[in-house]
């Protein structure tokens, strides 16, 4: 598994945990009698902040851990070549494309709930969900391209 694949895997696990936390909380709110705007707003803030902060921390920790593992493996302090070449950039762009398509479809679906008479809270909750789901799809598609060879 290459350096990029490891980074993407960490990102994927992070996003899956965040979307899991988000869905569990939404489900609990729904069970407790429906979406309450104040609780939903605080959940959005937590999820968006977590998505940004945990991703940054995860990326830093992955880099540190990989460097330590590399130093232990080789027995030297020589840095590993964590480079991003043209193929990595191309795979990254394909991942972004998959994310954008997922998010666009998600936003359309979310707007449809508004058209069918659901409250705006449902629509915005779905948009937040699809924004994280889009990241997950982007990560999965990148891993797929790396595993396939391109």
């Amino acid at each position, binding site marked *: 598994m290459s350096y*990029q694949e490891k980074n993407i895997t960490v990102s994927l696990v992070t996003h899956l945990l965040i979307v899991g936390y988000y869905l569990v909380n939404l489900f609990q709110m729904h069970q407790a009698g429906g979406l309450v705007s104040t609780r939903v707003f605080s959940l959005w803030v937590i999820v968006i902040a977590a998505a940004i902060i945990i991703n940054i921390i995860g990326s830093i920790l992955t880099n540190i851990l990989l460097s330590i593992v590399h130093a232990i493996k080789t027995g030297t302090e020589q840095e590993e070549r964590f480079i991003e*070449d*043209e193929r990595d950039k191309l795979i990254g762009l394909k991942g972004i494309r998959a994310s954008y398509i997922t998010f666009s479809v998600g936003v359309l679906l979310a707007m449809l709930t508004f058209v069918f008479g659901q409250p705006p809270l449902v629509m915005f909750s779905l948009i937040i969900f699809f924004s994280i789901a889009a990241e997950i799809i982007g990560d999965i598609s990148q891993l797929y391209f790396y595993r*396939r060879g391109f």
Partner: protein
Amino acid sequence: MEKRQVRNNIRKLRFHHNEMTQEQLAVKVGVTRQTIIAIESAKYSPSLELAFRIALVFGVPLGEVFSYDAEDDPA
């Protein structure tokens, strides 16, 4: 049009250059070993710049490293 028409002789050229490893070639042309593996197995067609860099490493013309199979090309 058939896909993956760009073929290459990188494995053979590596062998004739003191059995150069994929990692060594990757370092010389500034890409990852995974990219060299993908190019060798014809899963990825490199950019023109990278193709020239690979040819320069082996000291041969581009046509000796890469060839284009135009058999199924309608153009």
